[in-house]
């Protein structure tokens, strides 16, 4: 094969896993090419809150008198009493635990700065381990400014370090395939990629590291785990960072196996979340693209941030209310994704719409106009409830919402407000009628976040095939890696660093 470019290690994806992988590989003497499909680095981590859950007794923990150890990290993340830990691959957890302190030190050595305030995560952790990275200091280089997206500081700093150490970062280079000696056997040799109209091939003399970030944006892929997750469910991180399962698919094409799939549908963890910012397409709870975001032209609206779910009802695409709106449990998602009665769409629940009135707008202090709402399919207003239903026109709303059904839903809810009892779904109160015109329908469909399963690896982050054998020269870290469902950045960075180190030390 004629290679366009060549390096010892090729890393796919410049996010929370790929950047540490690239740096670690360089630290161990390898030449590194890092390809990133986006116009800028960072992936989901650029938009994250920067909460880094590394423990084991590192320097910052010790400074605050927090007693922790690698063993404690291990025991926390194999706890049988919790859904986010009971399905863990304990071999991976053991390695993760043992590498926590070294990874924290690695971040500090590469310039990452932390806010000195320990946080106890509401997950399997039993001691405070979260320290938040400092936000990047250049506002114009933050994709979601003004919203404490402190992950920007993590990925910008690591990128600067990677470049300084000689990592060759190729933006807008999309991996299109992984090249192996034979289709299902032999060593991995490199990747193919596309840059605009140009096709290129990049040799990886020692290893290819898949750090592509997960699969939530690939409808076909995510439905392997949960057939309900049809096309209407958007993804956190969009429209900046696509989790398209590219790495998983390319690896599976050459024999890779998935692993730890129970996590994805266990009902624990933020695989599916409520939208908190309604009336826009991407309203993930902690993520708002303000008008000065460099991608606001793609996001189109900031959304209306909900402070009180008593101010609205949710209806499905048929105009029927389906659950208690103030219930934040996973039961809400089951109801939202239930069969809506549409015989043409048996899977998925269809779009979910928040329905509210002018009084709710006043109580929330909203201005229901652009740039706060996206009138191109995600926000509608009308003088009456029946009229509102007919105005809803959205790519995922496959049939017109019947006005009489929506009106009946609202009238029934208003009757519950009069009586003080929600006979259908036991919403406390309910407090406010939906009666004062104009009326509004805002996109409030649940939004996907974490990929909680992915490729099988061993503790060196080497990818394992469906027969249980290592695929020589192929690595995976981050949300594309299976077997560990801790939310956030830490597992990405620990195994990214392990992958880079091991790949660099392989014989080519």
């Amino acid at each position, binding site marked *: 094969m004629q290679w366009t470019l060549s390096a010892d290690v090729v890393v796919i994806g410049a996010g929370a896993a790929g950047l540490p992988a690239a740096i670690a590989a360089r630290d161990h003497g390898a030449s590194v090419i890092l390809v990133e499909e986006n116009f800028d680095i960072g992936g989901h981590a650029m938009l994250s809150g920067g909460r880094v859950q590394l423990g084991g007794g590192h320097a910052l923990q010790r400074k605050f008198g927090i007693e922790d150890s690698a063993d404690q990290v291990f025991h926390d993340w194999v706890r049988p009493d919790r859904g986010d830990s009971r399905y863990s691959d304990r071999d991976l957890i053991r390695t993760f635990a043992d590498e926590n302190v070294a990874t924290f030190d690695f971040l500090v050595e590469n310039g990452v700065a932390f806010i000195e305030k320990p946080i106890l*995560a509401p997950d399997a952790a039993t001691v405070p381990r979260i320290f938040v990275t400092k936000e990047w200091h250049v506002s114009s280089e933050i994709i979601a400014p003004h919203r404490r997206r402190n992950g920007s500081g993590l990925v910008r700093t690591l990128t600067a370090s990677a470049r300084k150490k000689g990592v060759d970062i190729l933006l807008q280079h999309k991996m299109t395939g992984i090249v192996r000696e034979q289709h299902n056997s032999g060593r991995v040799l490199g990747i193919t990629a596309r840059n605009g109209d140009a096709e290129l091939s990049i040799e990886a003399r020692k290893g290819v590291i898949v750090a592509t970030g997960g699969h939530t944006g690939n409808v076909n892929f995510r439905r392997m785990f949960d057939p309900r997750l049809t096309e209407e469910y958007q993804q956190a991180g969009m429209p900046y960072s696509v989790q398209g399962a590219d790495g998983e698919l390319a690896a599976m094409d050459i024999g890779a196996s998935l692993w730890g799939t129970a996590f994805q549908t266990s009902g624990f963890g933020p695989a599916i979340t409520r939208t908190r910012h309604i009336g826009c397409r991407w309203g993930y709870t902690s993520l708002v693209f303000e008008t000065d975001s460099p991608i606001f032209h793609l996001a189109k609206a900031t959304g209306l941030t909900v402070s009180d779910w008593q101010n609205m009802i949710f209806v499905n695409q048929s105009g029927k209310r389906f659950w208690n709106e103030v219930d934040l449990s996973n039961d809400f998602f089951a109801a939202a994704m239930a069969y809506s009665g549409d015989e043409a769409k048996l899977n998925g629940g269809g779009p979910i719409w928040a329905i509210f009135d002018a009084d709710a707008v006043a109580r929330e202090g909203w201005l229901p106009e652009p740039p706060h709402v996206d009138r191109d399919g995600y926000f509608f207003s009308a003088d009456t409830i*029946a009229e509102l239903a*007919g105005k809803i026109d959205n790519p995922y709303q496959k049939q017109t919402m019947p006005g009489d059904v929506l009106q009946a839903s609202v009238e029934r809810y208003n009757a519950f407000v009069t009586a003080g009892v929600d006979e259908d779904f036991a919403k*406390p109160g309910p407090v406010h009628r939906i009666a004062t015109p104009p009326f509004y329908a805002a996109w409030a469909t649940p939004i996907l976040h974490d990929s909680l399963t992915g490729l099988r690896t061993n503790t060196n982050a080497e990818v394992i095939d469906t027969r249980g054998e290592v695929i020589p020269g192929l690595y995976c870290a981050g949300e594309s890696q299976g077997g560990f469902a801790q939310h956030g950045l830490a597992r990405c960075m620990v195994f990214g660093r392990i992958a880079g180190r091991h790949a660099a030390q392989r014989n080519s």
Partner: protein
Amino acid sequence: MTNAAQVKQTAATSLAVWEVPATAVAGERFAVKIGVKSSIGSDLRGHSVQVRNAAGDAIGEGRLGDAPRPSTDALYWTELSMPAPAVEGIAAMKAHFSAAGLQPPHTDASAQFSLTVVKAPEHTVTIKVVETESAKPLADAYLRLGSYRAATGEAGSATLRVCKGRYQLHTWKVGYDAAPQAVHVDGDMFIEVAAVVVPEENVDRAWKG
């Protein structure tokens, strides 16, 4: 002409009913606002609207005003006053718009609403909501005492005129938790509600184990 073609030529009307009081005193008059919208934006000024009780009897009637309600596209509206039913309890009513005579032809429209019919109030109940730690009064807390409802003002207080009786008092304010309490009203009274701060919605809550 086919039925389908006739249907196609018939525009729709739809209704909204707002400012419905939570309670009305039996036999006394109360008012609501009613608006009607034509799907093709027809001028509806002067057309009649009616409110009917559960038995279908008209209890109020009026004509839509000359101008659409501000902030709407073309919602013609009016305020209707009518007597509350004589019997206490929840009363369901229906606002109705007849499109007879409207050109081009429109369908009729109706909308249901309800309120609670009560006896004439005898006592004044003043409720103050305070945050427990700081004793700070809480404005914009929503109160429900039986069928009576109010929101607290800047001083954290609201006043309700109610009948003698035993009620449950519910308090709702986002970010706070206040336990429901039983209230026996047999005279004018003052109630202080203790509200406890609950942490802001935790974005990590979804993965609570």
